[in-house]
């Protein structure tokens, strides 16, 4: 019986109703953090001694890269939980995480390209990190597509979860690629152990941007999962009552429109 709380967490209806209350304050908080972080970084942080203003793209590029990697783990873990416990909600989270992760990966690649041109001298180089980041994008896109092509929902979820789990090996490779091989991409500036090689006047806005991106990711994941919940549970009574549709041919729908 110790696992009962866990199964309650897996109820789509419980999730939908809880998040409805959270979103009221979480969405404004996220937007505020994002605005403060980006304005601080892009307008008020000092210029870099060597790169001048072009380094500022780090405030968009680096948090997007972090979340595209963290988001992959979230998607894979959700898929794994769904496989093990056969719960509905984790699969919905997994499906919701794929397009968000793909968008963040595209943002990372695009901003990296824009940063690379003035500093490296090229928009794209077949660098280890670039290549594996591209692989990550294809994994995300693969899961988005795989989730759509299967006619049976259950089979699609299982296939996506397995692909997501297999793809997790790519995440540490991306993270360590600049240390393992000779590459054009610079190593990490923020280190878990030891001093960071980025001046505090730039580090604080960067950390704020990372926090803001985490919130933004969570917000997007909640919104996408809520959409997924509504689509998949469209035939249940509680969703019918929620959207005010005439579930059993009653008149409640008409009243909402009036």
């Amino acid at each position, binding site marked *: 019986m110790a696992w009962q709380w866990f199964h309650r967490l897996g109820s789509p209806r419980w999730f939908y109703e809880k998040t409805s209350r959270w979103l009221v304050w979480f969405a404004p908080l996220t937007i505020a953090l994002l605005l403060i972080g980006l304005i601080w970084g892009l307008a008020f942080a000092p210029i870099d001694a*060597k790169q001048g203003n072009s380094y500022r793209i780090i405030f968009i590029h680096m948090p997007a890269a972090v979340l595209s990697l963290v988001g992959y783990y979230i998607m894979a873990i959700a898929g794994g939980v769904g496989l093990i416990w056969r719960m509905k909600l984790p699969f919905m989270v997994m499906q919701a995480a794929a397009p968000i992760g793909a968008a963040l990966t595209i943002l990372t690649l695009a901003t990296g390209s824009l940063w690379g041109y003035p500093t490296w001298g*090229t928009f794209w180089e077949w660098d280890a990190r670039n290549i594996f980041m591209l692989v990550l994008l294809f994994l995300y896109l693969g899961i988005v597509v795989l989730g759509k092509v299967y006619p049976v929902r259950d089979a699609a979820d299982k296939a996506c979860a397995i692909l997501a789990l297999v793809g997790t090996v790519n995440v540490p490779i991306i993270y360590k690629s600049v240390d393992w*091989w000779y590459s054009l991409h610079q190593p990490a500036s923020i280190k878990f152990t030891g001093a960071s090689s980025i001046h505090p006047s730039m580090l604080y806005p960067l950390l704020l941007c990372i926090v803001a991106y985490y919130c933004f990711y969570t917000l997007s994941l909640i919104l996408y999962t809520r959409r997924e919940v509504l689509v998949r549970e469209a035939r249940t009574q509680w969703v019918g009552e929620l959207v005010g549709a005439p579930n059993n041919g009653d008149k409640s729908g008409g009243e909402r429109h009036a």
Partner: protein
Amino acid sequence: MHPVRKQRLIVVLAIVLLSSVAVGLLVFALRENINLFYPPAKFSADEVPRNVRLRAGGCVEPGSVVRDDESLKIRFVLVDNTGQLTVQYEGILPDLFAEGEAAVVNGMWQDDDVFYADQVLAKHDETYMPPEVAEAMGNGEEHQATCEVVDYGS
């Protein structure tokens, strides 16, 4: 935990573990090919094929950059701790190309021991600081972190 779920958990862990081992072995086998460039030490040791398109990367030795007066031709020496490589290039250099900074060049190493590059990329490091701080630290003469360990003696 229910035995069926425990079994599925083991299967999930096995999927992750086995695919990691498979990809890990693959990447280990291809490790030389994943390197973007050869370091100067490999050139000095003559372990690099000649007359083949490849990339070399290292630190631009301070004082080694010689520019041609009439054209965009430039000659410089890439170094690391044990090797050095003379590079010749004609064209526009990226803004961050400088002596004491890292660079990656794309081209051919020919029989006269000169690397004829048709592309020069600047490799910037992971330190970011305002200009005032940089000046206070080393009068703006600071070499980048990756090149600090290189011994420029000789």
